[in-house]
């Protein structure tokens, strides 16, 4: 599996650290415990196309939103998380 980092180009999977679903970009307000529970634990976990967060740890150190098909390991698109979060 290779990930095409928008800054560094096509790189080996070993350079990246996987965090989890891109739900992590939508942090709920403090105090809403049910929303925080959902944010931390509940996952849609689809058996198809999903978006998740990867850190280019051994590269440019960018956080990336990677669109992948988790049933085939095909990578469909990569964006900088800083762009997605705008």
């Amino acid at each position, binding site marked *: 599996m290779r990930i095409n980092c928008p800054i560094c180009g096509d790189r080996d999977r070993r350079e990246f650290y996987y965090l*989890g679903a891109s739900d992590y970009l939508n942090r709920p307000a403090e105090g809403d415990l049910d929303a925080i*529970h959902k944010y931390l634990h509940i996952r849609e976990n689809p058996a198809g196309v999903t978006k998740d967060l990867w850190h280019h740890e051994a590269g440019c150190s960018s956080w990336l939103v990677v669109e992948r098909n988790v049933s085939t390991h095909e990578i469909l698109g990569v964006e900088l998380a800083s762009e997605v979060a705008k």
Partner: protein
Amino acid sequence: MGYNAFQILKEGLTGNKGWRPVWRDPEPKSEYDVIIIGGGGHGLSTAYYLAKNHGIKNIAVLERGYIGGGNIGRNTTIVRANYFMPGNSEFYSHSLKLWESMEQDLNYNTMHSGRGLINLFHSDGQRDAFARRGNMMCNQGDDAILLDRDGVRKHLPYLDFESHRFPVYGGLYHPRGGTARHDAVAWGYARGADQLGVDLIQQCEVTGIDVKDGVVRGVQTSRGAIRAKRVGIVVAGRSSQVAAMAGLEVPIESHILQAFVSEGLKPTVDHVVSFGMGHFYLSQSDKGGLVFGGDLDFYASYAQRGNLPMMEHVMEAGMALVPALGKAKVLRSWGGIMDMTPDGSFIIDRTKVDGLYMDCGWCYGGFKAVPASGWCMAHLMAEDKPHEVAKKHTFDRFRTGHGLMDEEGTGSQHNLH
């Protein structure tokens, strides 16, 4: 059909023509008292114990593929009760006892082999942690012996004792741990459940779960609608998809775990050995293949196959521990889909839909749990209250933070287990 030595001799002398299928292939009825979705190890054992322990006779197991074709046929067959956390400790202790009586109970050879399991440690800190774990295991009534370096060398002379990177300080020996024949476990429970009247319906995919006014009414399948008063979802690997059919959201992320087997070799590895520093474990099947694996690939996946970096890591770890492994050829590798929960422990619980229950989140440890999972899920579904040894394994623990069972102590977060 019973099995005995005389029958094997007779069949052997007559060309093995007398063997018959050991479970029926029934058409689904329009209604059952209980439907179990998922004909894997856990689903089959749930159906078996519902019939055997709770006297429920009108049960169907619905399987999308074929019996034994999921994770029950894709694991590394290790059976152990060396857990630490309250909740897991009593559950796996119960499970190991069921393993030890399973063959007599099912009259089926599941090739359970209590050959002993050794977890190696490589530092003073790790030794202290394993000593503490061993004490917890003894307090639970199970067996644990702390071995020093020479003690390990007597059992496992083939390890690299000259390693300076990860010197072997000793090991925690769990003599009752071991392995079993994974397919035979599925077949044994399938046969046992069938003999108690359970309908095992293969090639029957559940496509919907009927819920009305918060109560489960039945399921929609590729072979028509089936009504039921109680439905159990026992589909680890596909829990999120099946739960979604009833409008449920679950705290699960699916990950890939790879395993490997070598060509058949003469008996070399007598135990199950785990090497925590390199994320590697090893045993030898009765056919002679070395069966080994490592950690998750660490990204969400349903592909049932992994990527090369983790394969390389496992081989490196194996070579670091047992240099002789380099002489063996790897025959096959495969991957299984793991229902990963945030704390790394499983869930057997009610859902917000009355009559709908879930047994899921087995992470990378479902095989050893097959008997106790079925035992406890059957108890929950029959009595509508959790079994004593599985009562801590609720959905709610993630929301409240109370009673988390994080064996690794890394935190209750999806990517940490």
